[in-house]
Protein backbone atom coordinates (compact mmCIF):
# COMPACT_ATOMS: atom_id res chain seq x y z
CA UNK A 1 0.00 0.00 0.00
CA UNK A 2 1.65 3.18 -1.22
CA UNK A 3 0.82 6.58 -2.60
CA UNK A 4 1.76 7.03 -6.26
CA UNK A 5 3.97 9.96 -7.26
CA UNK A 6 0.87 11.91 -8.26
CA UNK A 7 -0.89 11.10 -5.00
CA UNK A 8 2.18 12.32 -3.11
CA UNK A 9 2.16 15.52 -5.14
CA UNK A 10 -1.56 16.02 -4.48
CA UNK A 11 -0.95 15.49 -0.75
CA UNK A 12 1.75 18.21 -0.73
CA UNK A 13 -0.44 20.55 -2.81
CA UNK A 14 -3.26 20.25 -0.25
CA UNK A 15 -1.00 21.82 2.42
CA UNK A 16 -0.01 24.88 0.36
CA UNK A 17 -2.25 27.81 1.27
CA UNK A 18 -3.68 30.58 -0.88
CA UNK A 19 -1.19 33.42 -1.37
CA UNK A 20 1.93 31.37 -0.62
CA UNK A 21 5.22 32.05 -2.43
CA UNK A 22 6.53 28.60 -3.28
CA UNK A 23 9.62 27.11 -4.89
CA UNK A 24 9.35 23.56 -6.22
CA UNK A 25 12.61 21.67 -6.66
CA UNK A 26 13.59 19.70 -9.72
CA UNK A 27 12.23 16.15 -10.06
CA UNK A 28 9.40 14.82 -7.90
CA UNK A 29 8.48 18.24 -6.37
CA UNK A 30 7.80 19.63 -9.86
CA UNK A 31 4.70 17.40 -9.97
CA UNK A 32 3.12 19.42 -7.15
CA UNK A 33 2.35 22.23 -9.62
CA UNK A 34 -0.07 19.94 -11.47
CA UNK A 35 -2.15 19.44 -8.32
CA UNK A 36 -2.56 22.97 -6.97
CA UNK A 37 -6.26 23.81 -6.78
CA UNK A 38 -7.28 26.30 -9.46
CA UNK A 39 -9.27 28.37 -6.98
CA UNK A 40 -6.15 29.04 -4.89
CA UNK A 41 -3.79 31.82 -6.05
CA UNK A 42 -0.29 30.50 -5.32
CA UNK A 43 2.90 32.15 -6.60
CA UNK A 44 5.45 29.74 -8.02
CA UNK A 45 9.03 31.01 -7.90
CA UNK A 46 11.79 29.68 -10.14
CA UNK A 47 15.35 30.50 -9.12
CA UNK A 48 16.43 31.53 -12.61
CA UNK A 49 14.25 34.62 -12.22
CA UNK A 50 10.49 34.04 -12.46
CA UNK A 51 7.63 34.68 -10.11
CA UNK A 52 4.24 33.48 -11.27
CA UNK A 53 5.50 30.51 -13.23
CA UNK A 54 2.78 28.75 -15.21
CA UNK A 55 2.57 25.29 -16.78
CA UNK A 56 4.49 24.03 -19.80
CA UNK A 57 3.35 25.57 -23.10
CA UNK A 58 1.59 23.47 -25.73
CA UNK A 59 3.98 21.71 -28.15
CA UNK A 60 5.26 24.11 -30.79
CA UNK A 61 4.83 27.17 -28.56
CA UNK A 62 8.03 26.79 -26.51
CA UNK A 63 9.99 29.98 -25.86
CA UNK A 64 13.57 29.13 -24.92
CA UNK A 65 13.96 32.47 -23.14
CA UNK A 66 11.17 31.33 -20.80
CA UNK A 67 12.42 28.25 -19.00
CA UNK A 68 12.41 26.99 -15.41
CA UNK A 69 15.19 25.94 -13.05
CA UNK A 70 15.31 22.58 -14.82
CA UNK A 71 15.72 24.45 -18.15
CA UNK A 72 12.36 23.18 -19.42
CA UNK A 73 10.04 25.59 -21.28
CA UNK A 74 7.32 27.08 -19.08
CA UNK A 75 4.85 29.97 -19.23
CA UNK A 76 4.24 33.06 -17.11
CA UNK A 77 0.85 33.65 -15.51
CA UNK A 78 -0.89 37.02 -15.81
CA UNK A 79 0.73 39.25 -13.18
CA UNK A 80 3.98 37.29 -13.21
CA UNK A 81 7.40 38.95 -13.28
CA UNK A 82 10.99 38.51 -14.42
CA UNK A 83 14.06 39.58 -12.42
CA UNK A 84 17.78 38.99 -12.15
CA UNK A 85 19.49 36.18 -10.30
CA UNK A 86 20.52 38.59 -7.51
CA UNK A 87 16.89 39.48 -6.84
CA UNK A 88 15.87 35.85 -7.16
CA UNK A 89 18.33 34.68 -4.53
CA UNK A 90 17.49 37.66 -2.30
CA UNK A 91 13.95 36.27 -2.33
CA UNK A 92 15.33 32.87 -1.32
CA UNK A 93 18.01 33.82 1.19
CA UNK A 94 16.13 36.80 2.56
CA UNK A 95 13.34 34.58 3.86
CA UNK A 96 10.69 35.73 1.38
CA UNK A 97 9.84 32.27 0.03
CA UNK A 98 7.19 30.72 2.26
CA UNK A 99 7.59 27.10 1.25
CA UNK A 100 10.20 25.17 -0.67
CA UNK A 101 9.64 21.54 -1.64
CA UNK A 102 12.82 19.58 -2.32
CA UNK A 103 13.76 16.03 -3.17
CA UNK A 104 16.29 14.23 -0.98
CA UNK A 105 18.71 11.31 -0.73
CA UNK A 106 18.42 11.38 3.05
CA UNK A 107 16.81 13.41 5.83
CA UNK A 108 17.84 13.02 9.46
CA UNK A 109 15.39 12.94 12.35
CA UNK A 110 16.69 16.37 13.35
CA UNK A 111 15.98 17.83 9.91
CA UNK A 112 19.43 17.66 8.32
CA UNK A 113 19.11 17.43 4.54
CA UNK A 114 21.34 15.59 2.06
CA UNK A 115 20.21 16.08 -1.51
CA UNK A 116 23.04 17.43 -3.67
CA UNK A 117 25.88 14.94 -3.84
CA UNK A 118 26.35 11.24 -3.19
CA UNK A 119 29.99 11.87 -2.36
CA UNK A 120 31.11 9.04 -4.64
CA UNK A 121 34.51 9.69 -6.17
CA UNK A 122 33.42 9.35 -9.81
CA UNK A 123 30.40 11.69 -9.64
CA UNK A 124 30.62 15.31 -10.72
CA UNK A 125 29.29 17.47 -7.89
CA UNK A 126 26.56 19.98 -8.80
CA UNK A 127 24.68 21.99 -6.20
CA UNK A 128 22.62 24.62 -8.03
CA UNK A 129 20.32 26.48 -5.65
CA UNK A 130 19.73 23.60 -3.23
CA UNK A 131 21.85 24.98 -0.37
CA UNK A 132 20.31 28.45 -0.72
CA UNK A 133 16.76 27.10 -0.69
CA UNK A 134 17.48 24.84 2.27
CA UNK A 135 18.72 27.68 4.48
CA UNK A 136 16.57 30.46 3.09
CA UNK A 137 12.98 29.27 2.63
CA UNK A 138 10.75 29.79 5.68
CA UNK A 139 9.59 26.17 5.52
CA UNK A 140 11.46 23.36 3.79
CA UNK A 141 9.37 20.33 2.88
CA UNK A 142 11.00 17.19 1.55
CA UNK A 143 9.21 14.93 -0.89
CA UNK A 144 10.78 11.52 -1.50
CA UNK A 145 10.23 7.77 -1.54
CA UNK A 146 10.24 6.45 2.02
CA UNK A 147 13.06 3.97 1.34
CA UNK A 148 15.62 3.49 -1.43
CA UNK A 149 15.22 1.01 -4.29
CA UNK A 150 17.31 -1.36 -2.16
CA UNK A 151 14.82 -0.84 0.71
CA UNK A 152 17.32 1.13 2.78
CA UNK A 153 15.83 3.87 4.98
CA UNK A 154 16.10 7.44 3.71
CA UNK A 155 14.96 8.88 7.04
CA UNK A 156 18.01 8.33 9.23
CA UNK A 157 19.55 9.19 12.61
CA UNK A 158 22.48 10.90 10.86
CA UNK A 159 22.94 11.54 7.14
CA UNK A 160 25.78 9.57 5.60
CA UNK A 161 25.68 11.57 2.36
CA UNK A 162 27.24 15.08 2.30
CA UNK A 163 24.88 17.62 3.85
CA UNK A 164 23.02 20.31 1.93
CA UNK A 165 22.16 22.11 5.17
CA UNK A 166 21.71 21.19 8.82
CA UNK A 167 18.38 21.30 10.69
CA UNK A 168 16.41 22.84 7.87
CA UNK A 169 13.60 20.36 7.06
CA UNK A 170 10.28 20.79 8.82
CA UNK A 171 8.14 18.15 7.12
CA UNK A 172 8.66 14.99 5.04
CA UNK A 173 6.17 13.69 2.47
CA UNK A 174 6.83 10.12 1.38
CA UNK A 175 4.89 7.42 -0.46
CA UNK A 176 3.88 5.99 2.94
CA UNK A 177 3.28 8.91 5.28
CA UNK A 178 3.62 12.59 6.12
CA UNK A 179 5.92 13.25 9.06
CA UNK A 180 6.73 16.44 10.93
CA UNK A 181 10.20 16.98 12.34
CA UNK A 182 9.77 18.33 15.85
CA UNK A 183 12.23 19.04 18.68
CA UNK A 184 11.04 15.71 20.14
CA UNK A 185 11.60 13.73 16.93
CA UNK A 186 9.31 12.54 14.16
CA UNK A 187 5.58 13.06 14.48
CA UNK A 188 2.92 11.45 12.30
CA UNK A 189 0.73 13.85 10.30
CA UNK A 190 -0.83 11.49 7.79
CA UNK A 191 -0.53 7.91 6.61
CA UNK A 192 -1.61 5.94 3.56
CA UNK A 193 -5.18 4.66 4.03
CA UNK A 194 -5.15 1.14 5.43
CA UNK A 195 -1.40 1.08 6.11
CA UNK A 196 -0.51 0.05 9.67
CA UNK A 197 1.35 2.67 11.72
CA UNK A 198 3.76 -0.05 12.91
CA UNK A 199 4.61 -0.79 9.28
CA UNK A 200 5.79 2.81 8.78
CA UNK A 201 7.68 2.78 12.08
CA UNK A 202 9.44 -0.41 11.04
CA UNK A 203 11.11 1.37 8.08
CA UNK A 204 11.55 4.69 9.88
CA UNK A 205 12.36 4.38 13.55
CA UNK A 206 10.34 5.83 16.40
CA UNK A 207 7.47 8.11 15.41
CA UNK A 208 5.21 9.97 17.82
CA UNK A 209 1.50 9.61 17.09
CA UNK A 210 -0.49 12.80 17.25
Amino acid at each position, binding site marked *: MKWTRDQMAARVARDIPEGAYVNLGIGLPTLVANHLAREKEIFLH*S*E*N*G*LLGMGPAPPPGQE*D*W*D*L*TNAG*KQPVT*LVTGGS*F*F*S*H*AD*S*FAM*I*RGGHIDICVLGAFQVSVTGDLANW*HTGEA*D*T*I*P*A*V*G*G*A*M*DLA*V*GARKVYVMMEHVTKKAEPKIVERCTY*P*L*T*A*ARCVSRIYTDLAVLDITPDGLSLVDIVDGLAFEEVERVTGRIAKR
Partner: protein
Amino acid sequence: MTKVVASAAEAVGDIRDGATILVGGFGMAGMPARLMDALISHGARDLTIVSNNAGNGDTGLAALLKTKRVKKIVCSFPRQADSYVFDGLFRAGEIALEVVPQGNLVERIRAAGAGIGAFYTPTGHGTLLADGKETRTIDGRDYVLEYPIRADVAIIKAFKADRWGNLIYRKAARNFGPVMAMAAACTIAQVDEVVTLGALDPESIVTPGIFVHRVVHI
Protein backbone atom coordinates in the same frame (compact mmCIF):
# COMPACT_ATOMS: atom_id res chain seq x y z
CA MET B 1 29.76 58.55 -27.87
CA THR B 2 28.84 55.07 -28.89
CA LYS B 3 29.52 51.70 -27.32
CA VAL B 4 28.23 49.85 -30.35
CA VAL B 5 31.03 47.99 -32.12
CA ALA B 6 30.86 46.64 -35.63
CA SER B 7 31.41 42.95 -35.04
CA ALA B 8 31.64 40.20 -32.46
CA ALA B 9 35.29 39.73 -33.46
CA GLU B 10 36.07 43.35 -32.67
CA ALA B 11 34.18 43.13 -29.36
CA VAL B 12 36.35 40.29 -28.03
CA GLY B 13 39.54 41.22 -29.90
CA ASP B 14 41.59 42.33 -26.88
CA ILE B 15 40.76 39.49 -24.49
CA ARG B 16 44.06 38.20 -23.18
CA ASP B 17 45.31 34.72 -22.38
CA GLY B 18 44.69 33.89 -18.73
CA ALA B 19 41.65 36.17 -18.47
CA THR B 20 38.79 35.53 -16.04
CA ILE B 21 35.52 35.79 -17.93
CA LEU B 22 31.96 35.90 -16.62
CA VAL B 23 29.63 34.20 -19.10
CA GLY B 24 25.91 34.98 -18.80
CA GLY B 25 23.02 32.59 -19.19
CA PHE B 26 21.19 29.86 -17.35
CA GLY B 27 21.56 26.88 -19.60
CA MET B 28 21.00 28.32 -23.07
CA ALA B 29 18.59 31.09 -21.93
CA GLY B 30 20.74 34.23 -22.04
CA MET B 31 23.82 32.39 -23.32
CA PRO B 32 25.81 34.80 -25.56
CA ALA B 33 26.53 32.07 -28.11
CA ARG B 34 27.77 34.31 -30.94
CA LEU B 35 30.30 36.01 -28.68
CA MET B 36 31.45 32.57 -27.54
CA ASP B 37 32.02 31.71 -31.20
CA ALA B 38 33.98 34.96 -31.64
CA LEU B 39 36.08 34.14 -28.57
CA ILE B 40 36.86 30.73 -30.05
CA SER B 41 38.02 32.36 -33.32
CA HIS B 42 40.01 34.92 -31.32
CA GLY B 43 41.99 32.10 -29.70
CA ALA B 44 42.59 33.33 -26.13
CA ARG B 45 43.64 30.45 -23.86
CA ASP B 46 44.20 29.50 -20.20
CA LEU B 47 40.87 31.11 -19.44
CA THR B 48 38.92 30.94 -16.20
CA ILE B 49 35.20 30.90 -16.89
CA VAL B 50 32.52 31.82 -14.34
CA SER B 51 29.02 30.76 -15.38
CA ASN B 52 26.05 29.04 -13.81
CA ASN B 53 26.50 25.88 -15.88
CA ALA B 54 29.36 24.20 -17.69
CA GLY B 55 27.90 24.28 -21.18
CA ASN B 56 25.01 22.56 -22.91
CA GLY B 57 25.23 20.47 -26.06
CA ASP B 58 27.90 21.58 -28.55
CA THR B 59 27.22 25.31 -28.83
CA GLY B 60 27.96 28.45 -26.81
CA LEU B 61 30.08 27.81 -23.73
CA ALA B 62 30.27 24.08 -24.53
CA ALA B 63 31.93 24.90 -27.87
CA LEU B 64 34.51 27.06 -26.08
CA LEU B 65 35.26 24.28 -23.57
CA LYS B 66 35.75 21.87 -26.44
CA THR B 67 38.76 23.92 -27.64
CA LYS B 68 40.49 23.06 -24.31
CA ARG B 69 41.39 26.71 -23.80
CA VAL B 70 39.56 26.88 -20.47
CA LYS B 71 41.69 25.81 -17.51
CA LYS B 72 39.08 26.33 -14.82
CA ILE B 73 35.35 26.76 -14.49
CA VAL B 74 33.52 28.22 -11.53
CA CYS B 75 29.84 27.29 -11.55
CA SER B 76 26.90 26.03 -9.49
CA PHE B 77 25.61 23.21 -11.67
CA PRO B 78 28.09 21.67 -14.10
CA ARG B 79 26.46 18.26 -14.46
CA GLN B 80 23.43 18.21 -16.74
CA ALA B 81 21.87 15.81 -19.21
CA ASP B 82 23.67 17.55 -22.10
CA SER B 83 26.95 18.65 -20.47
CA TYR B 84 28.95 15.88 -22.14
CA VAL B 85 31.74 18.19 -23.32
CA PHE B 86 32.48 19.33 -19.78
CA ASP B 87 31.98 15.84 -18.31
CA GLY B 88 34.61 14.40 -20.67
CA LEU B 89 37.17 17.12 -19.91
CA PHE B 90 36.57 16.86 -16.16
CA ARG B 91 36.91 13.07 -16.08
CA ALA B 92 40.10 13.34 -18.14
CA GLY B 93 41.50 15.86 -15.65
CA GLU B 94 41.69 18.55 -18.33
CA ILE B 95 39.66 21.21 -16.52
CA ALA B 96 39.51 22.39 -12.90
CA LEU B 97 36.12 22.84 -11.26
CA GLU B 98 34.98 25.03 -8.38
CA VAL B 99 31.37 24.33 -7.39
CA VAL B 100 29.66 27.29 -5.71
CA PRO B 101 26.08 27.34 -4.44
CA GLN B 102 24.03 29.38 -6.90
CA GLY B 103 23.08 32.13 -4.46
CA ASN B 104 26.68 32.46 -3.28
CA LEU B 105 27.83 32.54 -6.90
CA VAL B 106 25.56 35.42 -7.84
CA GLU B 107 26.27 37.28 -4.58
CA ARG B 108 30.04 36.90 -5.02
CA ILE B 109 29.71 38.41 -8.48
CA ARG B 110 27.40 41.14 -7.18
CA ALA B 111 29.85 41.91 -4.36
CA ALA B 112 32.63 42.47 -6.89
CA GLY B 113 30.40 44.84 -8.84
CA ALA B 114 29.27 46.69 -5.73
CA GLY B 115 32.69 47.13 -4.13
CA ILE B 116 32.03 44.78 -1.20
CA GLY B 117 35.16 43.25 0.34
CA ALA B 118 33.53 40.00 1.48
CA PHE B 119 30.23 38.92 3.00
CA TYR B 120 28.76 36.43 5.45
CA THR B 121 26.23 34.02 3.96
CA PRO B 122 24.23 31.23 5.62
CA THR B 123 24.39 29.13 2.46
CA GLY B 124 26.78 26.21 2.61
CA HIS B 125 27.53 26.42 6.34
CA GLY B 126 28.43 23.01 7.71
CA THR B 127 28.83 21.47 4.25
CA LEU B 128 31.74 20.33 2.08
CA LEU B 129 31.51 23.59 0.14
CA ALA B 130 32.46 25.61 3.23
CA ASP B 131 35.44 23.44 4.20
CA GLY B 132 38.31 25.60 5.44
CA LYS B 133 36.35 28.85 5.19
CA GLU B 134 35.94 31.37 7.99
CA THR B 135 32.64 31.16 9.83
CA ARG B 136 30.86 33.38 12.29
CA THR B 137 27.69 33.22 14.37
CA ILE B 138 25.61 36.38 14.12
CA ASP B 139 22.44 36.69 16.20
CA GLY B 140 22.45 32.95 16.75
CA ARG B 141 22.75 32.02 13.09
CA ASP B 142 25.81 30.46 11.44
CA TYR B 143 27.44 32.11 8.43
CA VAL B 144 30.35 31.47 6.07
CA LEU B 145 32.66 34.22 4.80
CA GLU B 146 32.71 34.42 1.00
CA TYR B 147 34.80 36.66 -1.24
CA PRO B 148 33.92 38.56 -4.42
CA ILE B 149 34.52 37.13 -7.88
CA ARG B 150 36.08 39.87 -9.99
CA ALA B 151 36.57 39.41 -13.68
CA ASP B 152 38.46 40.94 -16.56
CA VAL B 153 35.54 40.52 -18.92
CA ALA B 154 31.81 39.81 -18.74
CA ILE B 155 30.13 38.41 -21.84
CA ILE B 156 26.35 38.58 -21.68
CA LYS B 157 23.28 38.52 -23.88
CA ALA B 158 20.51 41.12 -23.78
CA PHE B 159 17.46 41.88 -25.90
CA LYS B 160 17.82 45.57 -26.77
CA ALA B 161 20.50 48.20 -26.28
CA ASP B 162 21.04 51.84 -27.20
CA ARG B 163 24.39 53.42 -28.09
CA TRP B 164 25.04 54.36 -24.45
CA GLY B 165 24.88 50.69 -23.50
CA ASN B 166 21.56 50.77 -21.66
CA LEU B 167 20.09 47.27 -21.75
CA ILE B 168 16.82 45.46 -21.45
CA TYR B 169 16.54 41.70 -21.44
CA ARG B 170 13.98 39.20 -22.67
CA LYS B 171 12.00 37.09 -20.17
CA ALA B 172 14.02 34.63 -18.07
CA ALA B 173 17.08 35.19 -20.27
CA ARG B 174 17.84 38.13 -17.95
CA ASN B 175 19.16 35.83 -15.18
CA PHE B 176 22.88 36.59 -14.56
CA GLY B 177 23.16 39.45 -17.09
CA PRO B 178 22.53 42.48 -14.85
CA VAL B 179 24.80 41.14 -12.09
CA MET B 180 27.68 40.09 -14.32
CA ALA B 181 27.56 43.41 -16.15
CA MET B 182 28.56 45.16 -12.92
CA ALA B 183 31.46 42.92 -12.01
CA ALA B 184 33.94 43.06 -14.90
CA ALA B 185 36.50 45.57 -16.11
CA CYS B 186 34.98 45.20 -19.57
CA THR B 187 31.38 44.13 -20.17
CA ILE B 188 30.40 43.05 -23.65
CA ALA B 189 26.73 42.56 -24.53
CA GLN B 190 25.38 40.63 -27.50
CA VAL B 191 21.96 42.09 -28.33
CA ASP B 192 19.12 41.26 -30.72
CA GLU B 193 18.47 44.90 -31.51
CA VAL B 194 20.14 48.31 -31.17
CA VAL B 195 17.56 51.07 -30.81
CA THR B 196 17.95 54.83 -31.00
CA LEU B 197 18.84 56.73 -27.84
CA GLY B 198 15.60 57.53 -26.02
CA ALA B 199 13.69 54.56 -27.40
CA LEU B 200 14.17 52.58 -24.18
CA ASP B 201 11.79 53.70 -21.43
CA PRO B 202 14.03 55.09 -18.62
CA GLU B 203 11.64 53.53 -16.07
CA SER B 204 12.29 50.11 -17.57
CA ILE B 205 16.03 50.09 -18.29
CA VAL B 206 17.37 47.07 -16.42
CA THR B 207 21.13 47.56 -16.83
CA PRO B 208 22.17 51.23 -17.02
CA GLY B 209 24.90 51.88 -19.58
CA ILE B 210 27.53 52.70 -16.95
CA PHE B 211 28.00 48.94 -16.51
CA VAL B 212 28.35 48.19 -20.22
CA HIS B 213 31.39 48.86 -22.38
CA ARG B 214 30.67 47.25 -25.73
CA VAL B 215 27.48 46.33 -27.53
CA VAL B 216 27.29 44.07 -30.57
CA HIS B 217 24.18 43.65 -32.65
CA ILE B 218 23.91 40.02 -33.73
